[in-house]
């Protein structure tokens, strides 16, 4: 009884802190989210903007029985995992390097922030220019070096990975940002202990840095994962999902359903499927982390 009473105080303080943020989130995001959820089980289309009759899970069934859907799911997972892994590994490497240098630090940092400051749409436009197969500078340089021209986005086997490369080029900076901040707030003490315990820089990284950075790193990974799952600007500008369906990721699929197909309800259903997948992966990810600890 008394135990509860004490916890109660903490509990209330906690809610007092959490409330403004949660309230704001609830007010601004709550309605759209609920509305989107309602739409996903309604018969609302742009041509017939009425929620009724409700159709239950029919939209989900429709969407899932679409031949392109499961391909899109698989593609999205593949794409997200590859980009997040790439961004994390490269980003961690860069963050560590930056953390260790003394001189030039601000310069490196300034350069690293550049890609973040570009919206994905402009990044896509720019890379379309650079990778233009016939006139672009990249293929031109390849040719200068005696290499064959590459059909970066027009080849079904390549397009997704080109897109992933562009995404990594841009988004790695974001991972660096968070990891660098995480590194900066690690305590110095354990490193001194590790030094005298004879740990090499690599071992320090593996046994000290990585575990201590884990909470922040995990969050960076998750946020990135969510962002990648929702990617739609890049395929929108770069490939429109093509060639064929080779870059048709799930949120682009949802976009097509909602805005081209005018079936907001099916778009919402596809979106919720995506949400469930990401949520599942997120929970799984944290469960794994916790078990490994």
């Amino acid at each position, binding site marked *: 009884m008394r135990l509860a009473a004490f916890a109660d105080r903490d509990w209330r303080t906690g809610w007092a802190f959490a409330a403004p943020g949660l309230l704001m989130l609830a007010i601004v995001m709550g309605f759209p989210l609920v509305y989107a959820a309602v739409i996903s089980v309604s018969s609302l289309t742009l041509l017939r903007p009425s929620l009724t009759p409700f159709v239950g899970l029919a939209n989900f069934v429709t969407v899932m029985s679409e031949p392109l859907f499961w391909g899109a799911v698989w593609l999205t997972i593949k794409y997200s995992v590859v980009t997040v892994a790439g961004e994390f590994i490269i980003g961690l490497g860069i963050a560590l390097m930056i953390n260790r240098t003394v001189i030039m630090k601000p310069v490196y940092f300034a350069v690293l922030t550049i890609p973040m400051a570009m919206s994905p749409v402009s990044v896509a436009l720019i890379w379309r220019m650079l990778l233009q197969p016939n006139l672009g500078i990249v293929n031109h340089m390849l040719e200068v070096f005696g290499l064959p021209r590459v059909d970066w986005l027009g080849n079904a086997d390549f397009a997704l990975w080109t897109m992933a490369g562009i995404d990594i080029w841009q988004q790695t900076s974001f991972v660096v940002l968070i990891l660098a901040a995480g590194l900066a707030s690690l305590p110095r003490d354990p490193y*001194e*202990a*590790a*030094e*005298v*315990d004879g740990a*090499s820089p690599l071992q320090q990284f593996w046994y000290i840095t990585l*575990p201590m950075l884990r909470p922040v790193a995990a969050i960076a990974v998750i946020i990135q994962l969510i962002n990648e799952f929702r990617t739609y600007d890049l395929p929108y500008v770069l490939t429109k999902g093509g060639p064929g369906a080779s870059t048709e990721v799930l949120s682009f699929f949802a976009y097509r359903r909602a805005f081209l197909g005018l079936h907001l309800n099916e778009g919402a259903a596809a979106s919720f499927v995506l949400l469930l997948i990401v949520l599942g992966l997120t929970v799984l990810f944290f469960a794994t982390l916790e078990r490994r600890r």
Partner: protein
Amino acid sequence: MSSIELDHVSKLYANGAYGVRDVDLTIEEGEFVIFLGPSGCGKSTTLRMIAGLESISSGDLRIGGRGVNNVAPRDRNIAVVFQSYALYPHMSVRDNMGFGLKMRGVARPVIETKINEAAGLLGLTPYLDRKPAALSGGQRQRVALGRAIVRDPVAFLLDEPLSNLDAQLRAEMRLELVKLHRRLGRTIVHVTHDQVEAMTMGDRICIMREGRMVQVGRPLDVYADPVDTFVARFLATPPMNLIPARLESRGDGLMLIGAGFELAVPERHRAAYQPHSGREVIFGLRPEDLHEAPQPGLQRLDLTVVAMESLGVENILVGQFGLEPALEMSARLSRHFTAQIGATVPLYLDLTPMHLFDPETTRALPRPSLRLVKP
């Protein structure tokens, strides 16, 4: 091959403050050295420089004859107990202790054995799987100690490793450290504020003050013959009584004359002190040289009791004597001695181990040492 030489080593911190100034010290292989000094005098800084964790601003550091100013800490193979413990917060006690061994490629079963052994020694066995955050202060300190003693390094640097332990455990640990030293024969540098540790554990003690080494010597030598009033007062509690007086020849005797008291300098010191006759001096006498009972050779001094502290083991008396403003002396007396505050009690001073210091330089006036050379 693992002597540690500090050759005019200084440490200047970024803010312009000196941590250590011009320290010159050679620690022989296998020696057990105690660092002692007031808070902030540079003990930890010196240790950290030896470990390689702090850059050396000037001077040279050699380990086993090899200059190591630029050698990374991990290549020096030194085990350190940090004053702040510096435990790995994300590792269990077991992993904390095993880390150093693991890094040096020791086989898993060997590590396990060593950890279990050390944990048994330190009373940490029930806590092996906890994280440091769930330990008490003393338990954390023991983990820090355990992390060092499982290893077999070139030298151990222990920075107040027992400060947060209870007296009993501390006594046990003291013994264990001495045993460890005997068994491995490794150099040990031990920072402590504990008089018992300082006096009993080390081959030598090094007394630091404001970044400098002021006296280095065998514990009882330093205790018996402090080079100045600082060391004289520093080494024991209650510290040595220091009384301003004048040295005067009286017949063929030499007298210490102060405001309201006169004491005769013992025969054996007369020759040494004679040259200073007629000068102001500071007269030093340790509290344990004031006795409650008269004995031949002791000189009587009447003290008005100002304070009486019963430590259980013994009683400390603080008394005043002489003219206004009165002088003060403390005396260590038996636990059975009692006296009312304000009462006047006669105490009997043994002046044989007396000291005289120059009031200006605070340096001791030389006299033959009373210390017998240890066997």
